Structure formats: C-alpha cells, structure tokens
C-alpha cells in the first residue's frame, strides 16, 4: 500500500487558524491521512482547534496532542470521544507523557509514583477501556418500549491503578471507527510502554524501530500489523524520505514542516497523491477499519 502521511501543524504559532483551515483542505486533497495538532505554549488548544477545523472540512483525520499533565483521564476520554463521533470516526489523540493533574493528584492511589512512561501506559489503558465501555450497539432508542440503551452492554471500567482510579463508563457511545486512534511518540516512551495501547507509533530514530516494536508487541500478544509505524521528519525531498521509510520498514511519515503556511503548502504539493479519502482515520492509517468495541 502507499505511504501514509501525517502532517503536524502548530496552529496559532507557525500558522494562523485561517491558514490552518486552507491547509487542511489542501492536505485532504493531497491524500494526507491526518493533521496532527501540536500542543505547545504558543499553540491554540488542539482539541478545540481540531473540532473547529473539522467543522469546516470533512474527509481528513485529526489527531490532537494532549499531555497527561493537567488532564484527568475521564475528561480526556470524553472530549476526544466527542471529537471522534462529531467527525464520523476521524479523530485520534497523540497522548504526550507528562505529569498528573490537579483533580487526579488529590486522589492519587500512590502519591509518590511519578514515572512519566508508566503514567502514560496506565493513562492510555484507561482511555482505550473507557472508549470501549459504551459500545454504540448499546444505543437502541426504542421509543415504543421506552428503552434508550441496552444497559447490559454498557460496562464500567473500574480502573484502580497506581496513578488513577476511574470508575466509568463513558457517557456516550463509540464512534464509527470503534474508538479514537492512539498515537505514541517514542523517546520518553519506549516500545514496551506503548505496546498495549498504541495504534500508531512515531519515531525520530528509525534504525531498529521496526524490530523493537515487533518484539514489544509480541510480548503483549499483539501483531506488528496492528500498529502503524511512522517516521518523524522535518521535510526533505519525497524521494529521499521514501527511501528512508523503505529502508527501515516504516509504514509512513509524520511531516513536521518548520516554516509558515507557504512552506507547509509547498510540502503538501510535493507529497500529493490522488487517493480517495478512506471512510475513517483508522482506515486512512492502514489500521483495521474498526476496533471491536
């Protein structure tokens, strides 16, 4: 299959909101699978930005960066799930490893625990299980019988871990793609930390990444084909980047143009393909069309 492209935009910093809107349309028409919205002190909130851009342009996925820091997992699960349903199953989260939040810290089961990678693993697990706690098949809306849901299909997660306690279930049903896509960056995180929950893994150092990921996935009973491995690159000629992708058995690239809107547009034109937009973000990223929720 063709090389998957995810484009990183720092909206509010290097590109304005209106520029981001134009670039979103161009990216969609260029066959880009998803826009990843960077979260820095100089960007607009990625979930707000994603929701806004998705309200203007359909047919492309949005991955919002959200750090564990300042975000309680139940709130993150709800918000990204809302975005996923609103986009018809075209949303994901790039969960960034970090610290806790003011609400969860007050009730942290082990107040001394502070390892970002372990926190990430626990947090990502809570997200995926919350997203599966209210399968959309449970929503029946039987007006005659006065039954909104088949309650027996909705299950609390009852999570009781080291960093968080979260009862669940989520308050809304799952999306057309089952649940939002989870993107993990290797660096602070190693393959073992992300093996259980990640759908997409992003690396800067590609050498050996495929083998390490394959091994980590096998250790938790998953197959390498269940995860999309992307190499993160600033820019460069598509031919050189593609050679790098093939050399290291990556599934695609995450493009991080350093400049403003004009440079991003030039990059998109250089990478353009003529693929019809797939029905969900999962499909666009070469993942199974739907996760069984």
């Amino acid at each position, binding site marked *: 299959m063709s090389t998957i492209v995810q484009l990183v935009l720092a909206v509010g910093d290097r590109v304005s909101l209106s520029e981001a809107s134009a670039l979103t349309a161009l990216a969609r028409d260029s066959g880009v699978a998803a826009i990843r919205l960077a979260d820095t002190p100089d960007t607009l*909130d990625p979930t707000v930005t994603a929701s806004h851009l998705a309200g203007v342009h359909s047919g492309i996925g949005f991955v919002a960066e959200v750090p564990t820091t300042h975000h309680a997992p139940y709130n993150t699960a709800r918000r990204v799930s809302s975005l996923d349903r609103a986009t018809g199953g075209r949303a994901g989260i790039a969960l960034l490893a970090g610290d806790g939040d003011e609400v969860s810290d007050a009730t942290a089961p082990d107040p001394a625990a502070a390892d970002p990678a372990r926190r990430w693993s626990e947090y990502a697990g809570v997200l995926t299980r919350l997203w599966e706690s209210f399968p959309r098949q449970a929503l029946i809306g039987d007006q005659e019988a006065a039954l909104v849901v088949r309650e027996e299909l909705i299950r609390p997660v009852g999570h009781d871990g080291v960093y968080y306690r979260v009862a669940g279930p989520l308050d809304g049903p799952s999306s057309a793609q089952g649940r939002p896509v989870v993107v993990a960056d290797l660096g602070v995180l190693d393959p073992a930390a992300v093996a259980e929950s990640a759908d997409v893994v992003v690396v800067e150092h590609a050498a050996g990444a495929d083998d390490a990921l394959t091994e980590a996935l096998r250790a938790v009973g998953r197959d390498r084909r269940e995860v999309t491995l992307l190499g993160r690159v600033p820019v460069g000629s598509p031919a050189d980047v593609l050679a790098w992708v093939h050399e290291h058995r990556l599934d695609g690239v995450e493009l991080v143009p350093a400049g403003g809107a004009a440079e991003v547009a030039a990059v998109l034109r250089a990478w353009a393909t003529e693929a019809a937009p797939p029905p969900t973000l999962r499909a666009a990223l070469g993942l199974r069309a739907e996760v069984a929720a």
Partner: protein
Amino acid sequence: MLHLNVNILNAGVFGGSWRFPGTDGTASYTIEHYTSIAKKAEEAKLDAVFLADGPALDPGIKHRTGNNFEPTTVLARIAARTERIGLIGTLSSSYNDPVELARRLGDLDHVSGGRFGWNVVTTAGPVAARNFGRDGEIDHAVRYQRAAWFTQQVVAAWASRTRFASPQGRPVVVQAGGSSDGRRLASRVAEVVFSADQDLEHARAFRAEIRAGAVQFGRDPAEIVVLPGLSTVVGSTETEAKRRRELLDELLPDAYGRGRLAAQLGISLDGLRDDEPIPAGLLVEPDEAGGSQTFYRVVKEIIDRENPTLGTLLKRLSGGGGHRIVTGTPEQIADDIETWYRAGAADGFNVMPDVLPSGFDDFADHVVPELRRRGLFRTDYDGTTLRAHLGLGLPALEGAA
C-alpha cells in the same frame, strides 16, 4: 432588551421528549442535532446556545437520552458553522484542572471570535466523583469553596493571557446555582445567572438579592443578567398546547421520573404508590441537602405548598427537574415572558424547549416574532460578541476576593 438563550438539552427538557411522535429518538447522539439547532437560534437572533454538562453517564440512561457530547468540542464546531450566536458551555469547577480549563476556554473564545461564555458549576453526585478517584461526592460547601477559588484562578489566567486575545476580552462568566453558597458565588463573579424559579415574587427577590450582593462586592448590578430557566410547550391553540403537554406526560417513562425524583430528593420512593402524597417528613431543609440544592429547594417548595401525590408531582415535573413550565399559544407564552420581564423577575430566559428540535422550531418561528412585535426582542444583532448581545462590558473582577 430581553435576552434569550436556547438550552440544547439533548432531546428536550421533558423526560419523554425523545419518544415524541415524529422525533428521531437518538438524534441527540449526533453532532448535526446541535449544529442545526444553533443555526436556527442564530436565524432567530438569540443571544446564545447553552449546553448543560456533567462528567458522568446519567444513571437514568436506560429510559431517557442524556447529554453525551463534551461542550467545548461541540461549541468549537458550532463556532465554525455560525457567525454571531453566543456559545455557552457548562464546565465543572469540581473536576477540571484550572490551568488547563483557562487555556482551553480562552482559546475557544478566541477561535469563536469572542462568542464564548463559561457556565461555572459544581458537580454533585457520587457517579461523577467515582470517575475522578473519589468514593463519594464532595461536600456541598467544599464544592462551592473550590468553585470560588477555581473561578478566580481561571479569570486571573485569562487576564494575564495576551497571546490569543478575543474581541470580547475574555469569556462571559455564567453561574447556575441557587443555593446560599451559589448565590454568594453569583454575586461575586457571575455576569449571567442561570436560575430556577417557579414563582414570580420569589424570582424577583432572587434577582434583587443577586444584584444587591454584587454591589457589596463593588460591582455594578446592571452588569448582571439573570436568566431563569423556562420550559416551553407551544401550541397553535391553547387546546393543542395542552394536548401536547398531556402527551408528553404520557410518554414520560415512569421508571425514569421516579428515579430522577428520588435522586433529587435523596430519599427512596420504592413502595410509594402514585396516589399517595410525598412523605414531607423525610425531607431535610434545602441548605442541608447534599446534591443540587437549587432543584431540591424548588421541588420541596412544591411539596410544602401543594402536598401533591407522587403521580401528580411526577406529572408536574415531567422529568424536567424543576424549571418552570409554560404551556400555551405563542401569545400566551409571550405574555408570560413579558410579565416576568416587566416585573423585574428576569432579564430574559434560558429557554428549555419541551422537545428538540420541534419545540424550539415552534418557539423560534412563533414566540420570537410575537416578542418582536411587542418591541421586547431584537430584530438583528448589534454586535458580534456574546458580551455585545448581553449588553455587558468587560468587568473588573480581580479585586473581588
């Protein structure tokens, strides 16, 4: 000038709304439900759309559709598809991190071009508490202490934020909560108060108290807009409106109505027949109630005043919780709105249509033009921001501690 918001409470304020004939029972689980009502509200030149919220699955979900989208994502989408309508979202002070919330809400205000309002609430109940590591709900007084602290943190963060300013300076602060603690918070920080009242005299006194309280905090009472919730059942004739209301009562799933009332009062209704009165002896004073004291008080007052049977009370509330319900023709509803407005009981209303979207279509198409004929409501927007719609300036709250 009168102010009107529409509260997009999933399928409508009535417990049986999602079963109303001609209604798509699960439409409120689609984003289009919210964006299309918002567009309609903008065509009718309303001040804002309003979204209630709580971070939990409603235990009554089996028999009634619930709120199921997170408000900032819904409002960011509505902002992309509308130009002028204000966007008010409920975000909990109990279960959010103030640093994160200040940034997200400020950015939403920027992205929407200055149309956002934050409805500060405290979140009651053990169900939400358990999603954030707690075994039970936070004590009422502690929730309000935190709300006051939390709101100050957020407002201060907005004041120090220069990178993504919005045309209205900062989001409008809305407060909903009529308890003693809630009224204090409203006088101190609220620019819009979303209240619940059944009685005109009581509402007048409430509004006067909030305004007087604001003066004590050094604020101009004209900078506070009090909007009681108003549930509407519109018919082209009085008979038609009454029939619509009766049908909604019939459609109310009994188990839902009973479950919601029991939760609201904090007592068990098991074994109580529909023709028996509510056992008033089991009810504590409102200030001692743990959950939402506002709705507890409203329902207790009905019980104290009328000693209704359980069946009568369930019909009276119709799964709506305690906001006032007016049933009638567009003229009759406009009469009611005008009476409250002219009496100083309200600066406008947070309109809660019985069934969505049909009940709001009727309100927008028939009640709003009637209010306009009477010179009570705008024919077009004067400004582009929510503050402009509400006639609010940018107040100084920092010294209000």
